[in-house]
């Protein structure tokens, strides 16, 4: 089925918009009826196993899977209303029980889904070695599909007459997700049976949630010329976007003008940092903490962090790791988190005061990376400075926002918000600009899901749409013609194939790039993206570029499959193909080799895959 078919299906059938936030740590679902403007967007509570034999509906579905062993649970202990014996369990019990059986728990699968260095369709999770041949591992793709499948089944059970497959589903992705990660997310959603799908960037969803909560009153807070900086610090990732308020005829229009890099850094890192700092104190003279105790220490550090961040009067908060046995007072370990330590580790560590010219530290080259590519620099404000500097308009030292909207569980804390606002205001004041307006969001843990549903209503014609198109420009590598020199690779130039801001539903042809290929041949290109080269149009060729201007992505490839047009003498005619780029209604980038001379009326098309499977 093509993306156009799905979109058509959505407008015909859908009665609801379902917004899904598929988060690194938690998923949330929001529902809004399309036909009734008076009914607000509602959060859908997701039934899930919370303990053996116990099912509870909760606002958040923890993004964890658990792979139970054969004899581990009594019959029916993991039974869901739609599945009597799940081979994979999602949700709260997967998270909590999995903390005691880490080898069977899949966590942070979203970070793996956007990690180009691993086989995302391969059974690699739970990550790490295992000597258990009976453990059936899963792929990052399957994990995402399973989580979405759980949501689909839960929704369908509650809405048997309006199954989710017939509803308009808006699924959010980090703004910084590359085309491959977006494709994989869409693929997971299709595998889970979500047919009428569009993707939405999470920071945009946060702004839609804010707009929805304000109604028409938002026009009092924002006006033409305002630039809203959305700072989204989730459990595992940090995402920045800049959205501009512009005049659109006699109306206000919103345009997303910049998106930051993918930064694998979030609230979980803060909790881990605190837990490791407190570990010695908690252990005392006793034994080394085991995996479960460490997990509990991280949770407890989070509780203490949140308590201290939300009340300025509190000077310290206890951190407790209860005994594993029934004697609660016997081996319960405790320590204290002081305000001083919290400030030093979380506020100064993750939100350091810095200049707008600060550059985040890079990982040293050549350092072998095993596991997830976590950000080398924990300083979120330094990443922010870098983002604003890279997106400066001509004549500006850095892009100057006039308003800020926070999103993500971590930023429910006023102390952190205050720190970020103070630093930004310092930069702005020094540059002679006004201080920031702070836009207050609500219920930040479900705001993205809520905003996704609100966006669905906007697409159905209710409300203002944020425009923006694709957030980066994309290039293919083309070898420059030169005589062969042994031991010397011919230089590669980058040709723009999809320009920044290219809008949904448009298709562009890269003129002049024609290849004669045979059926069965594969076409393979080096692939680059740029967050900063805004002005390049299709076909622009760069012979050289600055190191941080273009980022190389994994190679893209297609194999020409199809009928071989052979002549009577057995000679196979090459297929002349050109390169086309388009942004699908779904919101993904599509690059295709298209046959230039049609057979009959049909131009055959072959999709260039972003996520090329390694050949074994």
């Amino acid at each position, binding site marked *: 089925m093509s993306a156009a078919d799905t979109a058509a299906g959505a407008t015909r059938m859908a009665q609801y918009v379902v917004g899904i936030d598929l988060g690194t740590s938690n998923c949330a679902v929001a529902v809004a009826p399309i036909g009734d403007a008076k009914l607000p967007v509602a959060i859908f509570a997701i039934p899930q196993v*919370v303990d053996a034999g116990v*099912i509870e509906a909760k606002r958040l579905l923890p993004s964890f899977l658990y792979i139970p062993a054969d004899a581990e649970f009594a019959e029916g202990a993991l039974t869901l209303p739609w599945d009597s014996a799940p081979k994979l369990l999602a949700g709260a019990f997967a998270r909590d029980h999995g903390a005691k059986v880490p080898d069977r728990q899949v966590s942070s699968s979203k970070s793996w889904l956007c990690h180009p260095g691993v086989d995302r369709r391969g059974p690699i999770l739970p990550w790490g070695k295992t000597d258990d041949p009976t453990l059936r591992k899963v792929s990052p793709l399957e994990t995402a599909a399973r989580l979405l499948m759980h949501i689909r089944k839960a929704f369908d059970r509650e809405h048997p007459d309006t199954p989710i497959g017939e509803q308009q589903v808006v699924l959010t992705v980090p703004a910084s997700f590359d085309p491959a990660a977006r494709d994989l997310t869409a693929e997971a959603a299709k595998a889970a049976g979500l047919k009428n799908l569009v993707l939405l960037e999470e920071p945009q969803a946060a702004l839609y949630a804010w707009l929805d909560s304000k109604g028409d009153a938002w026009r009092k807070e924002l006006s033409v010329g305002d630039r809203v900086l959305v700072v989204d610090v989730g459990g595992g990732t940090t995402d920045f976007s800049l959205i501009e308020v512009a005049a659109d005829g006699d109306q206000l229009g919103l345009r997303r003008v910049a998106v930051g890099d993918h930064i694998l850094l979030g609230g979980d890192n803060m909790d881990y940092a605190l837990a490791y700092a407190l570990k010695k104190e908690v252990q005392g003279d006793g034994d080394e903490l085991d995996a479960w105790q460490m997990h509990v220490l991280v949770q407890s550090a989070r509780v203490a962090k949140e308590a201290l961040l939300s009340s300025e009067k509190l000077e310290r908060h206890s951190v407790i790791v209860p005994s594993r046995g029934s004697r609660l007072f016997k081996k319960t370990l405790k320590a204290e988190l002081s305000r001083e330590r919290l400030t030093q580790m979380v506020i100064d560590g993750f939100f350091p005061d810095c200049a707008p010219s600060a550059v985040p530290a890079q990982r040293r080259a050549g350092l072998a990376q095993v596991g997830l590519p976590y950000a080398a620099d924990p300083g979120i404000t330094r990443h922010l400075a870098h983002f604003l500097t890279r997106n400066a308009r001509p004549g500006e030292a850095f892009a100057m926002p006039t308003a800020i909207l926070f999103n993500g569980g971590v930023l429910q804390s006023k102390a952190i918000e205050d720190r970020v606002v103070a630093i930004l205001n310092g930069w702005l004041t020094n540059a002679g600009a006004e201080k920031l307006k702070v836009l207050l969001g609500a219920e930040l843990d479900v705001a993205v899901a809520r905003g996704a549903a609100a966006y669905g209503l906007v697409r159905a014609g209710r409300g203002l749409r944020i425009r923006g198109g694709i957030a980066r420009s994309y290039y293919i590598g083309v070898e420059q013609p030169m005589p062969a020199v042994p031991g010397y690779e011919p230089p590669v130039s980058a040709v723009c194939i999809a320009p920044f801001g290219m809008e949904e539903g448009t298709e562009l042809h890269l003129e002049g790039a024609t290849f004669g290929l045979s059926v069965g041949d594969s076409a393979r290109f080096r692939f680059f993206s740029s967050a900063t080269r805004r002005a390049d149009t299709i076909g622009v060729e760069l012979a050289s570029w600055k190191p941080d201007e273009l980022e190389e992505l994994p190679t893209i490839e297609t194999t020409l499959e199809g009928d071989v047009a052979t002549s009577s003498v057995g000679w196979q005619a090459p297929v002349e193909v050109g390169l086309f780029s388009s942004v699908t209604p779904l919101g993904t980038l599509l690059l295709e080799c298209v046959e230039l001379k049609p057979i009959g009326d049909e131009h055959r098309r072959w999709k260039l895959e972003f996520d090329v499977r390694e050949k074994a």
Partner: protein
Amino acid sequence: MSAESPGFFSRIGIAFSLFFKVLFDAVFAGRAAAQLTGAPAPELQKDEPAPKAKLEALPPARPPETAALQLLSALQREGRFVDFVQEDVTGVSDADLGAAARLVHQGARKVVGGWFTIEAIWPGDEGAAAVVQPGFDARRIRLVGNVTGEPPFRGTLSHHGWRASDARLPSLSTNADATVLAPAEVEL
């Protein structure tokens, strides 16, 4: 979360009193919310799995003891409540007791907050003047002190009361043994 957040100790009190009431009063446990809200008992079943789904694996009703056991099990799971009450606390220092109380409180709060919607019965501030009108609901308002004469009664509000305006009990699988409050754990 409600805007009027009760203090730490009163929250422990709420958790404990709810727990004991449910545990020792089977009738109350079975119809907890129904009794408190004055709604007919079948209302309680509205969060139960609807019989419309084909793959129904869950029982339509549960004996009242089961609900009490479920609550106890949830309090243990989230806040080590059974461990806490089963332990002899004579000789345990206030500091250790306090640390454990935080743990129990965090968990109990999560469970009570998730299962029940709890609100004050009397909207005013405690300590403020209160007038009890004729025909008041004696199940919701209790007169204490010098109780004489006919309503309206004038006095001060000493406790604003609590009611559970909603109760959402988790489902239990047919095969589950509700008497297991916490399984024995064996580390391999």
